[in-house]
């Protein structure tokens, strides 16, 4: 998978998950990878860098992923955001989709699942 030219924003308070995601994107030729550790930083980074795709954790200190996606979608309704959490209940899934997420990933990190959501993103963008 060649992701050259894609600008990605990864937001999670877990340094381990950020590293796993960063390693994945680096291995797939993506050179524009932004990483932040809180919801507020995600909002600020989105406004400053306008990434193509955002990976946003739901459970974070200070400002949750749901609060962050609400602000980002208010700023840019076309933002492409994928939310993730270790809790794969219907409630979390509904909260994420209702807030405007395009997809939902269950943690921990799994390469195949990330590939699937990126392929979905590429097919959506390719169709536009």
């Amino acid at each position, binding site marked *: 998978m060649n992701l050259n030219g894609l600008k990605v924003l990864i937001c999670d*308070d*877990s*340094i*381990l*998950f950020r*590293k796993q995601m960063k390693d994945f994107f680096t291995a797939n030729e993506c050179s524009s990878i932004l990483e932040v550790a809180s919801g507020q930083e995600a909002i600020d980074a989105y406004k400053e860098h306008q990434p193509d795709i955002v990976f946003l954790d739901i*459970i*974070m*200190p200070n400002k949750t992923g749901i609060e962050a996606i609400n602000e980002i979608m208010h700023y840019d309704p076309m933002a492409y955001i994928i939310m993730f*959490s*270790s*809790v*794969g*209940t*219907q*409630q979390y899934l509904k909260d994420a989709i209702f807030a405007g997420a395009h997809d939902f990933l*269950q*943690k*921990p990190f*799994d390469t*195949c699942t990330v590939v699937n959501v990126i392929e979905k993103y590429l097919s959506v963008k390719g169709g536009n």
Partner: protein
Amino acid sequence: MYAQFFGNYLLNKELVTPEQLIDAIQCKQDIHLKLGVLAIHRGFMTVEEVEFVHVKQTQVDKRFGEIAIEEGFLTKQQVDILLNEQTPDFLLLSQTLVDKGYLTMEEFQASMIEYQSRFELTDLDFANEQSNKVNALIREFFEFDEVNDDLKEMLYCYIILLFNNIIRFVGNDFTPFPIVKIGAYPITWCVSQKITGDFSLHTAMDMDESTLISFASRYVGEDYKVNDAYVRSSMEDFINLNNGLFAVNVSNDNAKTLYLQPTLTENDVLFVPEAPIYYIPIQFTFGTVNVMFVLLDQ
């Protein structure tokens, strides 16, 4: 899971010393073959299929065989063949203790008969780790006083899930000890996470630095050498994974909604919550992990 509890039983009876038990658990660990390894060896599954099942186990609380059947990688008959090939963990531990001369065959037989009788276990139960009697054994082993029945049931579900996840993602070389109830706890290196919603629970795992590094290394499959941010993040990832699966189980089985709060790592502080702390010492071959629970809204 019988081996882990039988080890504690032998310790209580003073038939083996803690050092002998840890030594035997370590040796047993080297011999024990996981179902996935046996499946590849038999040609029943590919490496990729086994890896798929392992990833799936981080998302749903199911046994290897169950997922492999659901995904069409194995038939029920093949799972039975593999389970028959896999020497029960309990027998491996006992055999190792006898081989090392820590326990005579007579002592082993007598203690096994007494243990089986006390917990109403048959030989078939020992050979079948999937027996519901494992759950009954856990309920008898861990006693929560002054906790209402509904919450007690949730705590047992949590403990059973935690032990399963430790075995799946860290290793089965441990022995648990009974619950201790205290008012304050001096933290060494502790990862914790509050669970809120239809009931509230503060969960935590405390250990010394070398145990932290060993536990995190095993969980992530890295060879961490120092206690850095990645080690602590790996431990937080483990408790987050366990609690995430717990929230899913509780949602599916009890129609209760739970929310996880951000994980937290603390070092060298005194933990003094508003409610009593229930803690379970778990002795691994590489150190001791103290698992703690605090019921926040009893």
